């Protein structure tokens, strides 16, 4: 087919790959360029709340907003806090999600679809509503505390809402499916005769898991970890609703700068810095992985 008319098939291929790239260009790169532009301008009172970059035919760009990010420890603290919360949450997701994914992958065929469905089921309800539901469960006069009090396990309500615990809980609960699904995909694909071979060669089940299943599922572990970690770093709704004012996460700071302080240029600088800080190391890791795979071939 392609031999008959190579130009037509090239054009077709370009069209198919071109559309998603066009989408990314219009809805990701263009807004990013605008945000980057704003980050280089100065704040002012008015509409829009920043000075135009182009004044009297001259480009006036300044890096002052970025410098300020480094001066005020709030931003660095918020970033480190976010990374710490996202890392522990992703690790907890891994600890819970791995056995789940393994269990589903090794379940009898007829059980697999219903079990997977159960993992995805929460997505049928709005994310926001589910976080609100957690508020109802965790608050001092909420379901859990009422139950604990009624059973006489505690004398007074346990403070759960507006704690770091609640933030972790919320993130783990919300992002668990993103850990389970890629793990399931790699574990389900695994050739089970490898485990038989390991057993045949003298490996007890636990050893076989550590030496065969775990290493072969590492791509799924990495994918799941990143799928939880990346959105968790920038998470705004969960720390806002379940956390306290002391839970400083970068997403919340960003929100405050944009909507409470109306300092768009500083908020934009923060957004750009955050994106670079998270994306750059990941892109570097990915390039390393691709290069290593290329060398192995």
């Amino acid at each position, binding site marked *: 087919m392609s031999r008959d008319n190579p130009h037509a098939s090239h054009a077709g291929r370009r069209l198919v790959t071109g559309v998603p790239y066009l989408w990314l260009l219009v809805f990701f790169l263009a807004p990013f360029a605008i945000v980057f532009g704003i980050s280089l301008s100065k704040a002012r009172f008015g509409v829009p709340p920043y000075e135009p970059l182009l004044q009297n035919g001259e480009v006036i760009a300044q890096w002052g907003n970025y410098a300020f990010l480094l001066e005020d420890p709030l931003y660095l603290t918020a970033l480190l806090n976010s990374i710490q919360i996202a890392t522990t949450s992703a690790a907890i997701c891994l600890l819970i999600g791995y056995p789940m994914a393994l269990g589903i992958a090794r379940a009898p065929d007829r059980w697999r679809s219903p079990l997977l469905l159960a993992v995805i089921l929460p997505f049928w309800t709005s994310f926001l509503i589910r976080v609100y539901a957690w508020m109802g469960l965790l608050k001092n006069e909420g379901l859990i505390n009422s139950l604990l009090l009624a059973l006489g396990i505690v004398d007074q309500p346990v403070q759960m809402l507006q704690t770091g615990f609640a933030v972790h809980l919320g993130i783990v609960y919300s992002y668990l499916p993103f850990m389970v699904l890629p793990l399931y995909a790699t574990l389900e694909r695994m050739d089970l005769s490898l485990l038989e071979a390991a*057993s045949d060669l003298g*490996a007890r089940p636990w050893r076989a898991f550590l030496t065969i299943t775990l290493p072969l599922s590492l791509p799924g572990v990495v994918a799941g970890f990143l799928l939880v970690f990346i959105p968790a770093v920038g998470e705004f709704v969960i720390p806002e609703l379940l956390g306290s004012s002391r839970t400083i996460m970068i997403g919340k700071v960003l929100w405050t700068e944009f909507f409470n302080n109306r300092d768009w240029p500083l908020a934009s600088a923060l957004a750009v810095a955050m994106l670079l800080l998270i994306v750059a190391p990941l892109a570097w890791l990915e390039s390393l992985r691709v290069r290593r795979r290329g060398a192995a071939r």
Partner: protein
Amino acid sequence: MENGTSPANSAPGARPSVLSIESATRRFGDVVAVDRVDLAIGQGEFFALLGESGCGKTTLLRMIAGFELPDEGRILIDGQDMSRTPPYDRPVNMVFQSYALFPHMSVAQNVGYGLRQEGMARSERDDRVAEVLSLVELSALAKRKPHQLSGGQRQRVALARGLAKRPKILLLDEPLGALDRKLRERTQFELMALQARTGTTFILVTHDQEEAMTMSNRIAVMRAGRIHQIGPPRELYEDPNSRFVADFIGSANLLEGEVLGTEAGTARVRLQAGGHTVAIESDAGASFSKGQPVTVMVRPEKMEAGRQAFGGPNELTGQVVDIAYLGDLSIYHVAIADGIKVQVAMANRQHRQGKPLERGEGVHLAWHPGDAVILTE
């Protein structure tokens, strides 16, 4: 290969049996995959489980490895009851049909995996891995990953991995199935050499009778979960105990008839086809009763076809309906009665002398009384 006379063919009673299976049964739901199988395999044998897919041969192999536990019966390895022992505690290793090489480990790591589980010291392990790799001529590829190897090389890694722990028995599940024909033939002889050199007992599962006949000392022919006959290749071919085995191993002419009488180790049988009476030498001659329905089995190459009568005790007449010329051999399909055809295979020994038989010609068929077998099952 001359299997018939080598001592390896004698029943395992002559040597200590390394594996005894006693009335082992394995069911999957309503299906009986392995049905009351008894089997004893001697130390150093090259044994083949032969049968079509679904006959239970792979299940039986997996029972020996420990992946399937018998519902009834016992499995003894080296005299010890291992019916309930998990695979990782059995002194047997397996070469999987898919090879099941660990993709994230190098060739050397794959081969050393079992030794590592044993807790063998690093230096000793390295020596052993090097030794086994040189046995299968893969020393140069020790650092490669499985995906960098050809199919034949992967097969040899799987073999080396299976042999590294020096198992009492090496189980091979269709080990040549994934190789192309030429490589398969060469590998057959390599496997035999390897088995002779290591002295390990090999148990091979295959659906390919040629493969089983070439490599093994003894073969068990399986069908529907049962073993129909066990014996050296020559015995299975020359003295099958049933129509099934006769038909399964090689090609066979099976002629229905009834016993007229027996005298001095020779049975006279009247064939349904054409009402001919034939004489067949049989050890079991005395045990036939008059009028007993039997099947006479004659291999195509043991029959002779010619234009003139042979004048022997066994003589049929028929008409050539088809000829397959194979170069070294010609196979003649001869109709001896309505709807009953026999095959005669004759070597094309002469080039210019004599006129070959042609389609449509009337021919006489003959065979020696000692060259046919009477089957009752």
